[in-house]
């Protein structure tokens, strides 16, 4: 299936300013044109996904990068909500977190996370990982055609 090159809509749910900065830089250097949206806490992410409050008219993301440890509504709760919603559950959710705990990994996959990535401590490696993610999820993987 050949498609017109288009803007990849990516939602980053992350509260750590440093990680936000690194992710932003990684996506700037990306091969594909992309639109990186940032939600700094869980409620903001949900507002974005449901296009409410300050996010009316927001784009539906093609991929979601989700941190587990968020203030207020946690990453787990967001994952649960997305995967329980018949409109949102088709969006791939990539858990990107600093936790290496087995408990978190198993729980995330149980909640139907599409993949689980541990944030590398090293900044260069972090950017590298984000590149890989972008490469795989935006370039290689075939995503469903957006409805509406």
């Amino acid at each position, binding site marked *: 299936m050949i498609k017109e090159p288009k803007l990849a809509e990516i939602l980053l749910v992350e*509260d750590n*300013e*440093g990680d936000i*900065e690194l992710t932003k830089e990684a996506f700037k250097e990306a091969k594909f044109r992309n639109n990186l949206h940032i939600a700094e*806490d869980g409620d*903001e992410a949900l507002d974005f996904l449901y296009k409410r409050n300050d996010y009316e008219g927001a784009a539906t993301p093609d991929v979601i990068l989700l941190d587990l*440890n968020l*203030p*207020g*509504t946690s990453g787990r709760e967001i994952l649960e909500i997305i995967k329980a919603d018949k409109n949102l559950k088709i969006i791939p959710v990539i858990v990107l977190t600093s936790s290496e705990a087995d408990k978190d990994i198993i729980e995330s996959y149980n909640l139907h996370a599409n993949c689980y990535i541990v944030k590398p401590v090293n900044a260069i490696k972090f950017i590298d990982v984000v590149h890989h993610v972008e490469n795989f999820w935006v370039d290689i993987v075939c995503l469903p055609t957006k409805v509406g």
Partner: protein
Amino acid sequence: MNKQKFSIFNKENRAILRAFAGFLIGFFLIITILTAFLLVPKINKSLESQHITDSTISLQIKSELFRHFIEDYHSLLADLAKYPVVTSAALLSKSDNPDFIDLVDNFLIDGKKSRLVLKNIAGEVIYQTSKDLEGDLISNPPWLKNIFEDEAPYYFKLIGQEKNSFRFIIAVPVIYRGYTEGILSAEITAHLNDIFSSQTINDSGGLKLRQGNVVIQSDIDDIAVPRVISKDIIAPNIELTYIGDDAPIIAAQNKLRNNILGTLFIGLVISFILFTILGYKVLEGRQESATHHKVKKNLYILPIITALIGTAASISAFLIIKGVPDIASWMSLSVLLSGITLTFFITYSFIQFIRQQQIIESVVAQRTKEVQELTSAMENAVEGVSFIDPQGCYRFVNEAYAAFCGYKPTELLNKNWEMTVHEDDRQMMTDAYQAMLKSGKTVDEPRGLRKDGSVFYKRTTMISKYDEDGNFIGHHCFMGDITERKKAEEEILRSNAELERFAFICSHDLQEPLRMIRSFSEKLQEHIGDQFKQDEKGKKYFHFIIDGATRAQNLIRDILAYSSIDSNAEQFEEVCVENLISMIKDNMIMHIEDHNCKITHDELPTILGHKTQIYQLFQNLVNNGLKYQGDNTSPHVHIGVKDTGDHWEFSVKDNGIGMEERHLNKIFDVFQRLHKKSLYAGTGVGLSICKKVVERHGGKIWVNSAKGKGSTFYFTLLKPKNLENQND
């Protein structure tokens, strides 16, 4: 358990029985004495007066008969006096007329030739039928004068009595043309029966007729208890007297009294015997279920039979009395009623008594069952149970107790307690024993010694035991094997110590490298100097470095504060919360003034607690109240307090942004935050510290909040007295 021989004559029963018997006997005596002394004399008196009345009436009849008797003779003689030969003889004072002599000599009274005397007006004897006449008939008695002068009724005169007959004189005037010309008198002998006929009132009684000195009477020799019962005056100088015999009356009275008393007494004695038998059965039957059952079944039958007997006795008494004529009905009725009342009252009392016995029995049975269950429970309990006498020897040991110590129960019986306690802990247990003697109960955790010499940890609860009179008879020792728990506790203590060491490392060794990062980042910034001023990205990176290090330092600081709450085992002291709030306000004065904050509070109590921790608790909550505020507001925190009995319930209320309900359950978790750092900074440890402090002080913490409506944090702290108890 030893079955004690049941005795109905135990202390309690003896008292009840004594009281009951005394009550019964007393009542019987009262009713019998009342009947004997009040009722019977009354009945007797009544009987007697009835008897007298009857006698009087009969006597009057008798008198009347006597009057007729005399009248008959009088008429007979008066008829004779009317003959012309008689009147002429009297008038002429001559009795030589043969017709006259023939008439008078052949005049018969009661079929016998009569003895007559005719006198003239001068009182001279004109004629007499026989020469042996004497006394009143020949002489001129005083009453003769009355007849002459027409004043008579005195024409009758008794002469005397011979065994079964009596003699009397009767005189009539001889009247010629309205003038009394002479007196015709006759001496008559009559049979006693003619006047004292066998129709007398009472066969055993006697009659007496008296005129002047002359007395004629029926035979009264056989009268046992003679008594003059009644008199009647027939004429002014003649009286008729009835002499009664009291013996039959007395006999009748005695019979009546004996009947009444006998009936009552027999009725009551039967009742008493039945009661006694039933009472004995009831008391005796307490132990034997079969007898007991039977007695229970007959519980109401026997008293009812008794009551019926009592009632029958009363009715019999009533009927006996009723047979006696003219007894006031209330009197007989009162006997009936008192008899019935008495028997029913006794019956009721007895049923009550038995009921009470039944209640006591059921309580005893219940208690016995409980004791048996308890004993069985003790013998089979998982926990070790033993009883130790004042000499320190085991008197009871259950399976579990012995098993913990590696023995069989029989091996421990009558042995000293010391063999089951580690020698180093024996002094401790001796002290504990002394303490138990004072306070009644002690709980200790000494080391135990098994049969094979191995050591184990046990938890012992010693409870002193006293008999009914308050004499110390030994103590119960309940024992559990807590070796596993002790090991776990030791493990926890060890890991706690490790954690403390870890916290110490965090506070010092981990802070060190972080400080290096911060310091040298800043140094590097300076070193790069002017070139760096143009480099926005570089500046941003340096910011991340310093910010990260700072956050790490804060996290370490907070987590250290959090973990130190447990390890800090300082003694509690009195903390004046009011002063504490002042201190917090003083420390925050800059912030308060800058942000136009207001902190108010109720009158706050003094509590017992760890001062630094309580300070931390209030400071964190006040801080949060002031911190989580919307834009352009005047933060206001109010600290309130409420007395809930055992606890003080504090509240810290703010007018801040509040929280959604779904977040409320996680805000006390460590590192849990609700807001992004750019909005409200923090590590997410503050409320966790609050929770830990409150829990360590025997309280709980919770929050009420709604988004946009502010939050109120509540927590309770045990009052000093209760806190001490809890620590025990």
